[in-house]
C-alpha cells in the first residue's frame, strides 16, 4: 500500500510577484511502505520543495498529499502529528543544533512528541547507538564535535522520533569520503532494522544507485521518471541528456555495448559489474 501519495501537487513560489516561479508542477507519485527511494535532480529542479510538502512544511498551491490515504491537511490542527510521522532532515542539519548537550538535542523531537522521560531516554540511547555515537559523547556539547559527528547528531534527532517515513535532503553533502560512508551506513542499517520508508535526496547518481530500490528523477519542476533503479538506468542516455550524471560503471558498460559487448543488463554497481564480467570471462575460457 502507498504510504505517501501525491495528487497533481503544484507549488508556486511568490505567486503574483515578479519573482513568481513554479517549483513543483503537477506531481503524481506513490511511495510504498518500506521502500528506499533516491530522489535526484539538478539544483532548482524542485526536489527540496517537493519533500517539504510531505510533512506539511509547505502547503501546496494546488493538489494533495496523502499519508496512509488521508490528506495531511484534512485537519490543520493535526499537522504536527504528520511531522512526527514523516521525519525530515534538512540539508546541513548540523546548523539546527542548539542544545547544551548531545543528549538534549537528540531528545528535542521526542520531547515535542510528549513522550515520558523513560521512553525518551531509551530512544536517545538507541538512536545514538544506531548512528554510531558513543554514550560518552551524549554528555558533551554538540558544538565540540567534528562535522561528521554533528551531522549524525542532527540526523539522530529526527530518527529518534521513529517516523514512518524518513526523508533526508543531501545527508552527505560537504562531508569527507569516510564521513559520507558512515552516514550512508547508518541510514542503511536503520532501514534494515525498522524497515520503514526512506527517501534520500542526492545529486550523486553513484551514491543513489548503491542503496535505492527506486529512483525518482526530477527535472524542471516535473517528475522526469519514477521507477525501479534498474529501469531508471535503462534510460541512462536520456538521463545524460537532461544533464544528470549516471554512475561511472554504467558509462563503462554503455561504451562496452557500443564496442560489441552487450551484456543485455543494466549495470549500476561495481559489485554487479564484477560478477557479470567474471562470468563472461569464465564462459570465454570454457570455450
Amino acid at each position, binding site marked *: 500500500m502507498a504510504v505517501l501519495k501525491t495528487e497533481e501537487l503544484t507549488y508556486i513560489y511568490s505567486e503574483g510577484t*515578479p519573482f513568481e516561479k513554479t517549483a513543483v508542477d503537477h506531481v503524481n507519485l506513490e511511495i510504498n511502505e518500506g521502500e528506499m527511494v533516491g530522489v535526484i535532480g539538478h539544483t532548482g529542479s524542485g526536489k527540496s520543495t517537493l519533500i517539504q510538502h510531505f510533512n506539511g512544511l509547505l502547503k501546496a498551491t494546488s493538489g494533495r498529499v496523502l499519508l496512509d490515504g488521508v490528506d495531511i491537511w484534512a485537519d490543520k490542527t493535526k499537522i504536527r502529528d504528520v511531522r512526527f510521522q514523516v521525519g525530515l532532515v534538512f540539508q546541513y*542539519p548540523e*546548523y539546527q*543544533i*542548539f542544545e547544551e548537550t548531545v543528549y538534549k538535542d537528540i531528545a*528535542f523531537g521526542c520531547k515535542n512528541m510528549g513522550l515520558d522521560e523513560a521512553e525518551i531516554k531509551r530512544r536517545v540511547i538507541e538512536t545514538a547507538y544506531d548512528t554510531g555515537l558513543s554514550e560518552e559523547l551524549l554528555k558533551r556539547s554538540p558544538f565540540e564535535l567534528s562535522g561528521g559527528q554533528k551531522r549524525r547528531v542532527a540526523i539522530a534527532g529526527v530518527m529518534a522520533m521513529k517516523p514512518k517515513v524518513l526523508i533526508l535532503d543531501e545527508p552527505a553533502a560537504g562531508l569527507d569520503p569516510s564521513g559520507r560512508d558512515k552516514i550512508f551506513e547508518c541510514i542503511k542499517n536503520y532501514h534494515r532494522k525498522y524497515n520503514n520508508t526512506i527517501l534520500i535526496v542526492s545529486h550523486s547518481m553513484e551514491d543513489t544507485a548503491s542503496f535505492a530500490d527506486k529512483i525518482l528523477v526530477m527535472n524542471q519542476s516535473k517528475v522526469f521518471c519514477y521507477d525501479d533503479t534498474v529501469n531508471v538506468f535503462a534510460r541512462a542516455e536520456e538521463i545524460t541528456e537532461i544533464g544528470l550524471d549516471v554512475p561511472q560503471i554504467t558509462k563503462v558498460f554503455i561504451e562496452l555495448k557500443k564496442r560489441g559487448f552487450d551484456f543485455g543488463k543494466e549495470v549500476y554497481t561495481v559489485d554487479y559489474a564484477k560478477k557479470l564480467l567474471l562470468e563472461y570471462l569464465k564462459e570465454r575460457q570454457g570455450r
Partner: protein
Amino acid sequence: MLKDITIGQFFPGDSIIHRLDPRFKIIMTFIFIIMIFTGKSMICLGIGAVYTVTAVLLSKIKFKMFVKSIKPLMPFLLITAFLNILFVNGETVYFHWKFIKITSEGINVSIFMIIRIVMLIVGSSLLTYTTSPITLTDAVERLLSPLKRFKFPVHELAMMMSIALRFIPTLIEETDKIISAQKARGAEIDTGSLLNRAKNLVSILIPLFISSFRRADELATAMECRCYSGGEGRTRLRQLKSSSMDYIALSVTVFFLLCVIMTNLIYS
C-alpha cells in the same frame, strides 16, 4: 511569514526612477519626508499624494508591492488612529461616554495621520524598491564624504551598511530554514501556547547567532585574503554621474515642497 518583509528589497527595472542618480534619490526622499511633515492641511497632503502617485506610476512597480510594504504596519496604524479618535478633544462632539469623546476633529486627525504615514512608507519604499542596495550605500558614502574632514569614518560606515544590507536576505533565508528544521522536529513556532512559542524561540535564536558569527568570521577572512584595508586609496567600479534628468527631478521635488509651504502660509 518572513517572506512578507519587503524592507530593503529591490526590484530591478529600467524606468526613469530606476535610472536616477541614487544621491539625488536620497536627497529627494528627504525633501519628500519634509514635505509630508510640514504639510498642515488636507490640501498639502493632496499635493504630496500627487507627487507620490506620479513617482509610483513612473517607477512601473506593481501597486501590489506597495500594499505589501504597508500591510505589516497596518495594525499599529489602526490602533493609533483608534486612540486618536477616542481621545482627541474638539468642539463638534458626535458621541460622549464618560471620558471617551468622539469628535469630528478626532476623526480628522486620525485620517490625516493615516494618510501621512501611508505616504511616508510608500515614498521611502520607492527609494529601496528602485535602487539596488550597493548603489544606495555608494550614494550614502558620497553624500557623507564631507564629514571625512572631521575624521568621521564614512567609508567604514558605508561598508558596514552595505554588508548589513547584503546579509538581510541571507539571514531571512537562514531563519526560514532553521524555523522549518525545528518545525520538522515538532517545535511549536506559529502554533501552540504563547509560553511554548517563547521557549521554542531559543531553538531558532541560538543556531541563528552561531551561524551569524560564523558568517562574519568567514567574511572577514575572505576580505583580508583580498587585501581589504579600508577606504584609503580605493577606487570604485561604478562612478556616480548626474545627468540633466536628475536636476529636473530635483527641481520638481523642490517645487512641490514650495507648494506645500505656500499652502501652509495661505491657510494659516
